[in-house]
């Protein structure tokens, strides 16, 4: 019988995925950092004097964790989903399917590479925005935990979307009609306490909200929801996505006919 895990095979696929995005780092790392910087400059310029979300926290600073997390999540998703769909479209996915890689190895390699890109881009956004809007680091462990957890969830989501989509168009639909709305409506630019009761309830059904809220707690020590509750949502969401992904990979759904 075949063992479930081979370190060398997993490591190779993981490193290959890292190399893949790093070889086009202008597009995959530096461009998203510039985008986030533009968001900060424009939104802070327009709303700085009009909005105060947390007592004593300037809007410019409030925005930073949200933008960092948004960049982390979107790039984690983009990494695994674009790699999978490109491999499927060009046919070179065969090079991953022919070797003795298990479903566990494939899942972990893609998700961890996605986490790496998400964290690198998020870290880059944080580094450049700090010059414009200094933020405190009240609970660094929570910052790291939510960054890694959020990136892992979006990496797993990207893997799922990449396996499911048969063409780039379907993946774009997933990105534009699922990922983008969930990210924008998660509290990147506002606190859900500024919303009506109904929309507050809707927001609590959005797992992205818990990622960003928990992440922001790490900076300011203030959040809309208890960070432990947010962590529970993140762990639960990742567990469900991991189970779905592993089942798809094990059965060869849309990969092995």
């Amino acid at each position, binding site marked *: *019988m*075949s*063992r479930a895990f*081979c370190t*060398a*095979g997993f*490591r*190779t*696929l993981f*490193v*290959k995925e890292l*190399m*893949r995005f790093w*070889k*086009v780092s202008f597009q995959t790392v530096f461009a998203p950092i510039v985008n986030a910087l533009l968001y900060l400059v424009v939104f802070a310029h327009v709303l700085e004097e009009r909005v105060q979300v947390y007592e004593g926290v300037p809007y410019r600073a409030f925005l930073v964790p949200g933008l960092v997390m948004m960049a982390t999540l979107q790039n984690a998703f983009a990494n695994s989903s674009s790699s999978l769909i490109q*491999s499927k479209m*060009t*046919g*070179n996915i*065969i*090079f*991953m*399917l*022919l*070797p*003795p*890689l*298990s479903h566990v190895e494939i899942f972990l390699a893609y998700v961890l590479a996605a986490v790496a890109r998400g964290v690198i881009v998020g870290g880059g956004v944080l580094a450049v925005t700090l010059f414009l809007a200094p933020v405190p680091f009240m609970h660094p462990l929570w910052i790291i935990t939510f960054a890694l957890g959020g990136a892992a969830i979006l990496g797993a989501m990207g893997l799922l979307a990449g396996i499911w989509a048969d063409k780039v168009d379907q993946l774009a639909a997933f990105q534009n009609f699922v990922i983008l709305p969930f990210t924008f409506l998660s509290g990147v630019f506002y606190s859900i306490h500024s919303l009506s009761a109904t929309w507050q309830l809707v927001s609590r059904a959005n797992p992205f909200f818990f990622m960003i809220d928990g992440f922001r707690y790490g900076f300011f020590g203030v959040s809309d929801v208890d960070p432990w509750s947010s962590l529970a949502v993140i762990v639960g969401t990742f567990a469900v996505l991991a189970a779905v992904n592993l089942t798809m990979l094990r059965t*060869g759904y849309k990969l*092995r*006919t």
Partner: protein
Amino acid sequence: MTAQAAIRVEALAKRFGSLQALDGIDLEVRCGEFFGLLGPNGAGKTTLISILAGLCRPDAGRATVMGHDVRTDYRNARRMLGVVPQEIVFDPFFSVRETLVIQSGYFGLRHNDAWIDEILEHLGLSSKAGANMRSLSGGMKRRVLVAQALVHRPPVIILDEPTAGVDVELRQSLWRFIRRLNEDGHTIVLTTHYLEEAEALCGRIAMMKGGRVIALDTTANLVGRMRDRVVVRLTLSAGALPPAMAARVVSSEGASHVLRLPDPAEVEPLLAQVREAGGQIAELSVTQPDLEEVFVQTMRGTLAGTQSA
């Protein structure tokens, strides 16, 4: 069935919608063989290869590579197998060497540089080792596909139409290399539409049609089945063929005729009849059928008794 099977397939079946791609086939390829898998498009060759490679899951039956079940013991089965795919595919992010190092790593091989250098040398890729895959010609990309299939030194190598669209020089160097691998003990399974290649290289051949193996024998026996038949091509400078020969005529174009005879001994009487009827023979050639003729007759179902070895 012998114990030394490189590939063993038992009652393998696969259906895609209404198409029965494989219809319960049994097949065995022995260790060290150079085995040909022939058939028209849609015969089921690629489906069979895909099942062996783990790219496709069978509906029924069992397949093993060097004794390892391709489903329940897939890790070991895949380690034993190298596949050169039919389509030219590549990862545009990487150079030739990076591609081979990555492929080695997938198989758990971390320090494989010496073998990679040897493969590059034998396939004429040494000067392209640092080149990005996108910059290579189609023939060069196909060489890399062969290199990728060999990078983990598999005892069984499947080449799915490896010379399609490839120039003569590469074809010859590729076959020299593959022959050497076969002499070193590697089992080779070849699918090709170039039947002269199959005839020259393969010791045994299976012919597939409609998801079934309809002929399986040594190449010599397959061709030998038609050795008692001859094809006569003649051009007349005067006169015409006697009407009694009409049943033997395969095709006619003006004064040129192609006739098939069941026995070489009938050639001389045939020529005598032509001359007696007033015909004057300007050109004449007598040939025995090759594998292509056997293939055509087998696919038409006009060649009986085809499974023996």
